[in-house]
């Protein structure tokens, strides 16, 4: 039996219609009409213990709704969810004792109190043996560098610090599964990197199963072998990241700023393997197929023609991949 089994799960919300116009508010009060929103629609997948899976999709795809059903916050409208042999919402208390949850947008810590006091309270809430708690806290403080702000009230922490504290808080009770909803949202590169490294270690050293939702493909690239992609509530891809990228995420983009002195024929030039070139002032976008050429080869070629001042390589966005999946006709729903 897999650790997490999701079978034909759907979640439909009834949303009251709103009317426009001057008397809209009154009208929607009197004549309540509802429309149904299928946030999640017949999704099935299985997860084994120790996996690290990226649950991705554009905004509003149904990622958070799925996480909320897996954590027992919401009851599915239909279908079956089993996590470690339990139906999450039916045995909510027993279920949540074994999981850790982090919402990127919302802290689970006690806002007005020093960070360490939240950890203390969690020790009592989860009845964690003192020795184990101490051990975990030391380990996490060490890797996440919590030390400098352990005695600072949570409300005064920076977003990155707060996120690290929330991560530690979610893991103090040794959960088997860690759910992360947009754990790197709004963070700078350094903070993102620290969190990714931490997650990798937890997964490797403790065997904690990690499911994270994100719309940052880099999170996935760094952390997950497997991705599940949903769009409009429907599962459209479940498999290795490598394959997803080979099939639908082949197009990368080199963005280059050049020094003064443009050659006259700048518009016509298109290196081999490049699908399209866009230009705005001194900035060029070269979109290329990762199978036809490499970023290094392309940059080398460009450098021979132009004086490069600055450059970045952009990975395909989730939205682009989703579009290509639809275009390829591999979505059968």
């Amino acid at each position: 039996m897999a650790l997490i089994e999701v079978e034909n799960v759907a979640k439909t919300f009834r949303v009251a219609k709103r009317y426009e116009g001057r008397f809209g508010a009154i009208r929607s009060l009197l004549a309540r009409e509802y429309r149904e929103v299928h946030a999640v629609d017949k999704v099935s997948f299985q997860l084994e213990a120790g996996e690290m899976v990226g649950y991705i999709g554009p905004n509003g795809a149904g990622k958070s709704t799925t996480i909320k059903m897996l954590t027992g916050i919401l009851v599915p409208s239909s279908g079956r969810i089993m996590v470690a042999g339990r139906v999450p919402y039916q045995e909510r208390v027993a279920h949540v004792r074994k999981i850790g949850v982090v919402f990127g947008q919302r802290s689970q810590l006690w806002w007005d109190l020093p960070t360490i006091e939240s950890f203390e309270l969690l020790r009592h809430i989860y009845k964690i043996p003192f020795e184990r708690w101490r051990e975990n806290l030391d380990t996490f403080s060490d890797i996440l560098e919590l030390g400098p702000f352990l005695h600072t009230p949570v409300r005064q922490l920076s977003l990155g610090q707060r996120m690290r504290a929330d991560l530690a808080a979610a893991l103090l009770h040794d959960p088997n599964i860690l759910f992360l909803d947009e754990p790197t949202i709004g963070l700078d590169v350094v903070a993102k990197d620290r969190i990714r490294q931490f997650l990798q270690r937890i997964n490797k050293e403790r065997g904690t199963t990690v499911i994270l939702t994100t719309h940052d493909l880099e999170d996935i690239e760094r952390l997950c072998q497997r991705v599940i992609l949903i769009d409009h509530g429907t599962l459209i891809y479940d498999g290795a990241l490598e394959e997803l990228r080979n099939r639908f995420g082949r197009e990368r983009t080199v963005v280059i700023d050049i020094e003064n002195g443009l050659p006259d024929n700048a518009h016509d030039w298109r290196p081999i393997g490049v699908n399209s070139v866009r230009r705005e002032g001194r900035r060029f976008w070269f979109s290329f197929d990762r199978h036809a050429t490499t970023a290094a080869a392309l940059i080398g070629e460009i450098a021979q023609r132009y004086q490069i001042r600055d450059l970045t390589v952009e990975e395909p966005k989730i939205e682009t991949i989703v579009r290509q999946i639809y275009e390829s006709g591999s979505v059968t729903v």
Partner: protein
Amino acid sequence: MFSLYLRLIWARIRGQMQYKAAFWVDLIGFLVTSGIDFVVIAILFTRFDSLAGWSIYEIGLLYALTQISFSFAEMIMRGFDAPFETMMQRGSFDGVLIRPLDSFFQVLSSEFQLRRLGRTAQASAVLIFALSNLAIDWTFAKIVLFVLTLIAGTIIYSAIIVIGATICFWTIKTPEVINAFTHGGNQLASYPLSIYNEWIRRIFLMVIPIAFTNYPTALVLLNRSDPHGLAAQIAWASPLVALVFFGVARLFWQYGVNSYQSTGS
């Protein structure tokens, strides 16, 4: 469980103490604003000697009993009051459902409003004023009844606050009508129940049993009888009435939580 409750409440109080000035301003604010209530009644009595046969001191006893209970309920049940509304609006009730504790317990232990002691202090002053002018022949039974009534009253007001919070699961906002039963209810209960017409008396005895916060007990303490034939001894049923009413509120809460889980607001 109780030690965890104390720990969580203590954490909240320390949190509030981060804003000491606001605490004292609010405490004194509650003392003054709630004090005005009884001043209004007292002014009324400068024109009348009695109200339906009740003296100002007897009214003071009614007032103090219901007010002290109400202040306790507001203090203890603060988590179900405005902060719960905010919790619903921000969607942070999700955070409650991911903790391995009963949701009712968590909301209860999420807040404790010490500053409501302002109202308690004011009502206690009225109680002292009333008792020192009344010649009550205190017996052991009367003292027990007095204490039980305060406890029952606290439970009754607490149940109303829980019902108000539960409605949030569907409406996101506690409807104003709940204030009619909490604030309005304790205003109404500041006067003898006998002055109201029959259906109001019925509602406050049998539907939302606010009358049990003071009236029957005051009848017993003052050796009075009800003009409509309500047996004063019913005062001893106050704790039972309170517990049943609270039980109903608690079930309603559970129904609300289940509904939240299947609609997800």
